């Protein structure tokens, strides 16, 4: 473990890549930070009294409750999860604390062909509130690498977690995140997902289980698909108590790759409200977007809806901008950038600008 800041640990040539996944290496705008390269937990530090942060193995060794939570979310849904993980983060936000600045965690693939498998555990105690950004990225050298990330979220009674995951991979990296959030009564779990850089394959279907009354979950994603990639990305919310609410919103743009945008809303109680929205833009002949929205209810007293729309850019929109003096190419680029608007995500104001600037940088010249 290094005593210097996060900035000093990451190799100079990797700085841009790590920053592109939303990490503030100066730590100035973050309340806590965690960094793992391949299977090594290289750094963690909390700058806020309300946040405990460390590697998962250390947490299991030293924090008695951590062991009790480990695997519990998967067990509760009778789901298997890989046990051969090395590393991952443990984050706990203490009861009643509001942590204003985001917590950041970086999972970085460094070595060629490395198979990174991590298990993360996030506990937001009763009445606590926090923002978490996880950035996952790969170095130039990490050819044909693989990342498996298991995440278990426990959002306790009346708590709030706004979780943003930014994937910043490369053409030959395969990725499989597995996430389950257990959300108790009166609490909110918000998940924002951004993947704008090339990747070989992503397969993920995170699930939130709303266990107590008036619990809320929302999943929002922005996906850009490059030629040759396969992104099978879904979100599922199980509404298990009355007066729960869920929303799934996704925006996918295909420049030639294949996107499968799944969404599943399941009502296990009455008096719930849930909405699913999936919009896709296909920019080239070779691009594919397959939207699979699913809704399930055994009850009559539910309010569930979905809308899905896929197609090319509307010609009338391009013409409208041309009639304001933009060239056709400029118009197309503005429309696609607008389609990927940061406001699709449910980000706090302080992160909106930051993520929007990150998007601008990543998408520059893309369309």
């Amino acid at each position, binding site marked *: 473990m290094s005593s210097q800041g996060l900035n000093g640990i990451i190799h100079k040539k990797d700085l841009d890549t790590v920053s592109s996944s939303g990490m503030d290496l100066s730590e100035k705008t973050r309340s806590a930070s965690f960094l793992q390269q391949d299977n090594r937990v290289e750094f963690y530090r909390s700058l806020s009294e309300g946040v405990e942060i460390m590697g998962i193995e250390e947490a299991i060794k030293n924090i008695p409750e951590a062991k009790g939570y480990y695997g519990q979310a998967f067990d509760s849904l009778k789901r298997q999860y890989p046990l051969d993980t090395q590393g991952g983060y443990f984050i706990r936000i203490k009861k009643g604390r509001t942590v204003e600045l985001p917590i950041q965690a970086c999972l970085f693939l460094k070595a060629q062909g490395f198979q990174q498998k991590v298990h993360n555990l996030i506990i937001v105690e009763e009445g606590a509130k926090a923002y978490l950004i996880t950035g996952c990225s790969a170095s130039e050298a990490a050819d044909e690498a693989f990342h498996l990330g298991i995440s278990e979220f426990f959002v306790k009674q009346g708590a709030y977690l706004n979780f943003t995951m930014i994937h910043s991979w490369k053409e030959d990296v395969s990725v499989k995140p597995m996430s389950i959030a257990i959300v108790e009564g009166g609490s909110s779990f918000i998940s924002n997902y951004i993947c704008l850089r090339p990747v070989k394959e992503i397969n993920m279907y995170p699930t939130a289980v709303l266990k107590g009354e008036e619990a809320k979950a929302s999943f929002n994603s922005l996906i850009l698909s490059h030629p040759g990639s396969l992104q099978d990305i879904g979100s599922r919310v199980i509404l298990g108590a009355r007066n729960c609410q869920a929303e799934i919103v996704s925006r996918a743009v295909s420049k030639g790759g294949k996107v499968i945008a799944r969404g599943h809303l399941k009502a296990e109680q009455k008096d719930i409200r849930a909405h699913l929205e999936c919009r896709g833009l296909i920019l080239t002949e070779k691009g594919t977007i397959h939207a699979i929205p699913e809704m399930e209810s055994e009850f009559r007293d539910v309010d569930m809806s979905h809308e899905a729309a896929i197609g090319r850019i509307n010609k009338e929109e391009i013409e409208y901008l041309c*009639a304001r003096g933009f060239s056709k190419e400029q118009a197309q680029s503005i*429309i696609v950038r607008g389609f990927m608007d940061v406001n699709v995500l449910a980000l706090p104001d302080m992160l909106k600008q930051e993520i929007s600037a990150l998007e601008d940088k990543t998408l520059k010249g893309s369309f």
Partner: protein
Amino acid sequence: MLEVRNLTVAVSGKIILKDIDLKIEDGQVMVLFGPNGSGKTTLIKTIMGFGGYKIKKGEIAFQGKIINELPVDERVKLGIGIMYQHPPKIRGVKLKQISGFLSSDPDIIESLSQKLSLSEHLDRDVNLDFSGGEMKRSELFQVILQNPDLLLLDEPESGVDIENIHVMGRVLNEYLKQEKKSALVITHTGYILDYINAQKGCVMSEGKFWCVGDPREMFDAIRDFGYEKCKECICPHKA
């Protein structure tokens, strides 16, 4: 400024405009009357160069240059601007973004947006969830920031309440009072005529011009006798 010569236009293979001649001088405002489906919007969209409006015959000249083949944005650069009747909604594209492109002067953007009660709309997605009146004000806002020499206004006042017609009318009049600013205006209600100094009016029906005259007199006659009467009273005239 604008000269349309012997123009025949087809949409989806069907002839909509037939042998149209039209001339708008520098600083002249011309009003286009006509029943629904008579080809007024087609004429404006053809002048703007929108896709789907195929010129079968004739020419459109702007500032002495034939623009038949020019793409839309090139026509804008020459000085033509359009105010849409039904603008599309574009998600994620803010009105602020477009106005910032149209004018580099933030003071002008601010004062005009205030005049048109659009200050709060600048941060919104353009036309998304705008009311009918808001859309029209936003269209006028954009086209004035664009500062064209020829304004093409397609029913600028439809769906706008009386109070806002007054605001828009004043802004428009102020703009058109400048030297060498011309306009071609489509109106059904005629309200906009109370605010702008239109010199010429013409009635269009079945893709042709039928009558040319003083726009206010024409509007009164149309209100009293309908468009059919316009056809009867004068033989086809050239605008």
